[in-house]
């Protein structure tokens, strides 16, 4: 399914290096999408709770964030009926069992550990974009 509407990815990540890297990875695909960035949990929630028209199609969430932790952000998203249908993908360096279990308990849609290998990382990010924006059917 292909929508005409330009898709929006909401990236919640505090590390500038990672932000740029993810943006570079997303740029290198054929999919045309807008990337909106929040650098901490509070900023992220403010953005999500604004006008419905501006709601993103996919959220990429880092777990370790300043001000409001990624886990809290995830819990708030999934507790809010207006936004909980937006797919959230946790993208983090942590491979900690506890983090994984906790995230799924909080209804994360997908948990992905960042690869240390750059080409691998690029592949993963393109994969996320392709799957969630092109393959998966999302609610309107």
């Amino acid at each position, binding site marked *: 399914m292909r929508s005409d509407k330009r898709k929006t990815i909401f990236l919640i990540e505090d590390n500038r290096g*990672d932000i740029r*890297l993810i943006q570079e990875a997303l740029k290198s695909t054929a999919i045309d999408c807008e990337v909106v960035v929040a650098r901490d949990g509070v900023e992220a929630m403010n953005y999500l709770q604004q006008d419905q028209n501006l709601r993103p199609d996919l959220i990429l969430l880092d777990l370790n964030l300043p001000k409001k932790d990624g886990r809290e952000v995830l819990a708030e998203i999934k507790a809010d009926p207006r936004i909980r249908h937006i797919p959230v993908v946790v993208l983090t360096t*942590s491979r900690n069992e506890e983090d994984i279990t906790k995230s799924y308990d909080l209804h994360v849609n997908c948990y992905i550990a960042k690869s240390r290998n750059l080409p691998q990382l690029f592949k993963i990010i393109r994969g996320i974009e392709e799957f969630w924006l092109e393959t998966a059917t999302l609610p309107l």
Partner: protein
Amino acid sequence: MTQFNLEAQPINLTSLKQPSIHSLTQVQPHGVLLILEEASLTVLQASTNTTTLLQIAPDALVGKSIDEIFDSFQVDRFRAGLAEENLDFINPSRVWIRRNGDDYAVFDAVFHRNADGFLILELEPALTQENIPFLSFYHLAKASINQLEATSNLQDFCQIIVREVRKVTDFDRVMLYKFDNDGHGEVVAEEKVEEMEAYLGLHFPESDIPIPARKMFVSNWIRVIPNASAEPASLYPIHNPITQQPTNLTLSILRSPYVCHTEYLHNMGVSASLTISLMKDDKLWGLIACHHRTPKYVSYELRKACEFLGRVIFAEISTREETADYHYRMHLARVQSALIESMSEAGSFVDGLVQSDLNLLDLTDAKGAAVCFGGRWTTIGQTPSEEELNYLVQWLAKTVDDEVFYTNSLPLIYSDAERFKHVASGLLAIPISKRSYVLWFRPEVIQTVNWGGDPNHAYELRETGDRLCPRKSFELWKETVRLNSLPWKPVEVQATLELRKAIVNIVLRQAEELALLAQDLERSNAELKKFAYVASHDLQEPLNQVANYVQLLEMRYHDQLDQDATEFIDFAVEGVTLMQTLIDDVLIYSKVDLKGIEWQLVDSDTALNHALGSLRGRIAETNAQVTHDPMPHIVADGTQLMQLFQNLIANAIKFRSSEAPRIHVGVERQEEAWLFSVKDNGIGLDPKFSDRIFVIFQRLHTRDEYPGSGMGLAICKKIVECHRGRIWVESELDRGATFYFTIPVGGRDHSHAIGQKKNYLSH
């Protein structure tokens, strides 16, 4: 030394019944003995040597009144003296008897009454007219008392006494003999002519001076045998005409010694002897014994002087003995406080007990001591083996509830002790807790003491007639004191009780400090763990960034980079990758710790298979063959065990030789542990590095040859040590290597390992 063995013996060795002294009917021939009926002073019996000494036949004397023997002047003095309660007033009286014309025989006359009320008169020839006895007496007393006042030590004191007695009596040998609590005796002082054998320091069994002889020494404080080889004279008639029994001669001076006694004097080369009893609290404390090689007569006065010495001077000995006891108590108190001080200063109180100048042995005069604390033994001196000690403590735990336990015959109540009676016939124990003890040991008394007479080279056992030979009595005595040690003195027991109090206090205090320390340690350990985790995690992020952007540079600008630039980028990536590996390994290392272990019964086969599973790629790649013994179930942490196998097998593959790796995982059951081995046919290593390879970050090869952080074996070591096992390698260059590690059976000290807090005292 058998001088004291007076006893002739009906042949009854088992009961050792002694004949009664009063049944003896013979007298020494140098004097005359007359038994009188007191009211009429009529002679009832006379010694048969009157013919020689008085030139009157004994049968001529019997029935006569003494008025017919002595002149009336002398007899009046007797009558006056006998009217007094105390016969000492007339003893001795210088008397004379006309033998023939002007031939007078001069005697010292001594009276006593025996238990049956007969009057006994003994006449000893007065050999000298000089007044030496009185002067001797005076000098003896004066010199002795002056010297005695100058000495404070019991030993010196006894030495002075024997020296003085010898000076005035001129015997060849004078010794002071002291009875111990258990009846055996020791020569504590001796003065002698050089040629005679020394008896000083020798001990003699109780049976060398049997009970009847002791009784005699108690009633007759001075005994003299001027000539041991003289033929004794009998009495005429043999039986007392009134009682029709032998007359009781217990208190007689002239009464003949037993044949056995004189025989032994003879064997020792002694012809004359003088024995003075030393009494304390109405008990025989000891004897002064004098020996002479030739016959020797000691006058009555001189004997009395010696007896005086025995009585008066001995009062001083008692005081000295009490002082000595007091000094010993003070000494023990000093030892005790020294021990307590060094206990509180030493890192462990046990060290304080055994390492200081004054140690445990000094507290009880023991030959060996052992401390069991926290399951460990520390011993000094002569003790049973650790294994024996373990059993002994188990027995004590079941048997003893008191604060102190002591015995001088351990083998009689704990039969296993017979095996080590030579070090521990005596035991004194203070329990610190159910499993912690301080023990003192004393050897069997036979092994402790220098016995007079070599038990292995004993007298020939002669039972001539009905006599018991003293060497046989020694054997019998040895039998009775077998498995016994010298007894523990009450003051020694008291000292150990006080030490116990001090130990308990110190242990309690140390336990408290340890608990606090453990708390601190736990806290800082937890913080360290958190730190290791956070640090490794936070270190990874910037590192990733470096790696990522360097790689991005290379990907994007590949065409524009020259060969140098590409190489530089490679080095940067390599460095970062290594750093990442190191951080990962440090994280793993920090996660291995005692508290993290989940003790459970695991199948080591499963752990091994998991390890082989994760190594599948490398095994296939190198054509490695891994074989293993049947693997047991053991108590361990399954994950860590898997990691252990994985690291060791990965190592074996990594350090392979030109041949395909052949690896065997072996296991065998030892007494306390499972012994695992991982054997390979790889390049091996120089044995001098076999310890170094287990140290964190130690490597034997450059990273170009063999990549890796150098953490693998350090992690293995930590895992094994957290399981309270041991790991080591046996290897030679080019000959392969075998890594061994042990895991205690049943996860030894399980409760301790999982960090349960325990009261220190409950060990």
